[in-house]
């Protein structure tokens, strides 16, 4: 979304005092044809109502065909690299039958766009897509109606191509959408689902389309939050504690004031230095002498797992069936294992950044965030403003992966801007980013599972501690099973984690899939079966069987009992409604324990794939990013002190780690579209663990599978 596009709309500067009536809102929109619609559950509309959203409250998204024929879609979703700026536009263009380049996406602007909970959970396409298509179909119906009148032709005789309505038999009789929209003020509320175009009629959806934001991103024109500069803007640097939980005893800021032009601000617990030159702000901060009292470190990255088990609350049953005692009796072999994973950082290349301006009792905040409406509320509460007086704009976001749902930096910028009376930029340094990141939580999974003499899984007793529920339920055909979660969610409860934790790309599912798929391979080995054959034998879910077979075909899987010495691995799972199966080949250096992943095949069934090229890019991205948590990423800490503060010690995947990646998309054009930004990452721990076992005959039970742990597994 370029800034200029806002100006073309005649309601840029509107910050209404009260929620608008429908009529007032429509007046503000100006001419054209507007379709209002609701996305998701009615509860979302209720949430919007409670949040004092300035728009009327019976819809939460809308699209407009302007008098110039351009189509705009207004949504609170944001673009952070996952490509919805392209896929949502494609759906809209197809349903309306307009060229893709005539569609503008207006995203993540809290004054222009209806309330949205946030962009995560691979939900944009899944839950936004169907109502967006229905709204577009409604708009098309309105235009056909107008066209029929204009051309004096019954609607059944009309056809649309590229935004122009033609008389089917006399093509010279035609009228464009822009001609029809001119001078009109038509608003419709989408009341019921329209009959949608059949998938086979799609001309844009399902075809590979390149990213719409690519040219701006390769020329340096794309604006991220840190690239925006307001008149009079100051750069802020904020004094940070050496550890989470540390208390400030004293701070001598006199040194900072010796830097010409530096302003020191103290507001409650926050001490900040402001300067019009970012380097001088930094120098001034370094001159502050602060004394902190650090709390005693109770846990570190080695003892955290015992700690978590100790503080775990009673579990909740996620699902169960049959009888575990019966399952034990039916089992020939019973195997109990514990799986661990450490804390993992989001480590987006763009750090948390925001620019805030407070003027005349109103705040405008440009933030790198996955949750513009969340920022609006948090900032309003910190400033003592009403929520309607806070306007959040989301420029391009330089990666999120769950980490930018938390937007502390935006609140810091807003607080400082209010006090200083100048626009303020807060851009976290890399150490700040590591310190305040909401890490993927450390977690423990305990599994007790059994297999019969015939190789059927007969028992599955599964407990996951502190990762969360997503992906914890197995999908195998097991008569006696129970799945429990302890310490729900990603945040845990007070006293569990020594610092902030939160959702991380496909939250909980990376932990759960690593544990489950490792255990399945152990059972396969106990049953002396090929891991693929063993899975297929224990599955009834036809989608999972199909996706496993698709991966096997592409990989050229040949059956063998593990460990075969070949270094081949397999894993599968379900995330955000999407089925994935991975196969890989690894090479293990027996001297160093270093694992090189040579090849990964990833098959994915995501229902109808809106932008197959976009989906494949996400799959490749997941596989590449997943190498990190599988092999290297692990936050080292001592109590609340974070020891990894930059990329020298915190290693993320590099070019030299890259396997050959092959993707297979099972395109089910008649099935609803499912999530695509996360699923393909969930198998990376499991598939590599299983391949390592196949290579060396030893198993690693803890993520990441560092060279030391691999060497240990070799015995």
């Amino acid at each position, binding site marked *: 979304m370029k800034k200029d596009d806002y100006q073309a709309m005649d309601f840029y500067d509107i910050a209404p005092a009260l929620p608008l009536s429908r009529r007032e809102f429509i007046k503000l929109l100006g001419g054209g044809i507007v379709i209002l619609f609701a996305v998701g559950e009615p509860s979302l509309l209720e949430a919007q109502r409670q949040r004092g959203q300035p728009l009327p409250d019976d819809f939460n998204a809308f699209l407009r065909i302007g008098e110039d024929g351009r189509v705009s879609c207004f949504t609170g979703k944001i673009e952070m690299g996952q490509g919805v700026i392209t896929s949502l536009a494609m759906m809209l263009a197809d349903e309306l039958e307009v060229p893709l380049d005539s569609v503008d996406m207006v995203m993540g602007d809290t004054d222009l766009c209806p309330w949205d909970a946030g962009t995560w959970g691979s939900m944009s396409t899944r839950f936004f897509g169907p109502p967006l298509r229905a709204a577009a179909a409604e708009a098309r119906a309105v235009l056909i109606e107008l066209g029929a009148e204009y051309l004096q032709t019954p609607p059944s005789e009309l056809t649309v191509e590229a935004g122009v309505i033609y008389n089917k038999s006399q093509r010279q009789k035609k009228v464009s959408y822009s001609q029809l929209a001119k001078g009109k003020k038509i608003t419709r509320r989408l009341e019921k689902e329209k009959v949608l175009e059949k998938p086979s009629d799609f001309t844009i959806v399902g075809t590979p389309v390149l990213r719409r934001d690519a040219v701006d991103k*390769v020329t340096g024109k794309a604006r991220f939050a840190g690239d925006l500069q307001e008149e009079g803007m100051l750069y802020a640097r904020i004094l940070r504690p050496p550890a989470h939980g540390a208390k400030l005893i004293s701070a001598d800021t006199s040194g900072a004031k010796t830097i010409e032009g530096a302003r020191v601000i103290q507001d409650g617990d926050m001490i900040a230095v402001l300067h019009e030159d970012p380097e001088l702000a930094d120098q001034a901060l370094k001159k502050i002498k602060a004394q902190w009292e650090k709390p005693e470190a109770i846990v570190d990255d080695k003892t955290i797992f015992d700690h978590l088990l100790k503080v775990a609350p009673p579990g909740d049953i996620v699902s169960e069936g049959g009888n575990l005692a019966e399952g034990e009796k039916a089992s020939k072999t019973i195997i109990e294992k514990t799986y661990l994973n450490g804390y993992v950082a989001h480590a987006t290349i763009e750090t948390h950044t925001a620019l805030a301006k407070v003027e005349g009792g109103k705040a405008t905040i440009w933030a790198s965030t996955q949750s513009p409406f969340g920022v609006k509320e948090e900032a309003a509460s910190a400033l003592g403003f009403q929520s309607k007086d806070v306007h959040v704009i989301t420029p391009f976001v330089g990666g999120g992966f769950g980490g930018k749902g938390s937007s502390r930096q935006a609140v810091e910028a807003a607080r400082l801007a209010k006090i200083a009376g100048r626009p303020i930029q807060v851009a976290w340094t890399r150490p700040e980013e590591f310190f305040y990141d909401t890490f993927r939580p450390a977690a423990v999974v305990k599994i007790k599972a059994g297999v019969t003499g015939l190789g059927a899984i007969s028992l599955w007793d599964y407990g996951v501690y502190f990762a969360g529920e997503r992906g914890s339920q197995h999908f195998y055909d097991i008569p006696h099973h129970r799945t429990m979660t302890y310490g729900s969610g990603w945040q845990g409860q007070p006293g569990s984690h020594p610092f902030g934790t939160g959702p991380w790309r496909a939250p909980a599912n990376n932990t759960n899939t690593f544990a489950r798929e490792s255990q399945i391979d152990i059972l396969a080995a106990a049953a002396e079966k090929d891991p693929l054959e063993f899975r297929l034998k224990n599955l009834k879910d036809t989608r999972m069987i199909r996706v496993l077979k698709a991966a096997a075909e592409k990989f050229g899987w040949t059956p063998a009992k593990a460990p075969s010495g070949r270094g081949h691995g397999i894993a599968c799972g379900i995330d955000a409604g999407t089925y994935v199966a991975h196969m890989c080949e690894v090479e293990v250096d027996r001297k160093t324990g270093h694992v090189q992943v040579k090849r990964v095949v990833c098959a994915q069934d995501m229902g109808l794939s809106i932008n197959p090229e976009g989906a494949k890019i996400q799959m490749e991205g997941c596989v590449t990013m997943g190498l990190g948590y599988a092999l290297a990423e692990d936050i080292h800490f001592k109590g609340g002190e974070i020891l990894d503060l930059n990329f020298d010690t915190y290693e*993320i995947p590099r070019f030299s780690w890259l396997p050959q990646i092959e993707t297979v998309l099972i395109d089910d054009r008649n099935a609803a579209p499912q999530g695509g930004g996360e699923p393909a990452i969930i198998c990376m721990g499991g598939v590599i663990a299983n391949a390592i076992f196949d290579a060396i005959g030893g198993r690693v039970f803890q993520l990441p599978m560092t060279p030391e742990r691999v060497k240990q597994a070799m015995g």
Partner: protein
Amino acid sequence: MNKTIRFKLNGKTKSLEIDRDRILLWVLRTDFKLTGTKFGCGEGFCGACTVLVDNEPVRSCQFPVANIDEKEVITIEGLAGNGKLHPLQAAFVEHDALQCGFCTSGMILTAYGLLLKNPNPSRKDIIKGMDENLCRCGAHTRIIQAIQRAAQNMRGGSKR
């Protein structure tokens, strides 16, 4: 200590009276408003801030501005000529070699430096040359393809 330095920035001669200790990244972003060059880690580990100084890729977050005196600096904004994308930029678009786009400027300029030295790099050469540039979205596979394609096109004569 202030001193006047003279240099070429994206083809244009500039002269600046400036504290010689200032860091190139911030001079580009604040004094020249060339915000295509990104801050990523501040310690030279990630490569998001890469620019070319006399055709050599450097980490501008570690580079004192004094060192550009009498030299030529190229940033991402200076790569496209006459409204036409540079073959590397075109190849990045064509191969979808980016997602969030934050590492992209640094990737393209590092690749440019690589191709100036080695116009016909093998896949191995590209991996080696790009290994110190980090991408979190996982666009690596396509970045390699884009560099290979750009190398072909540049050898074919369409340098700019």
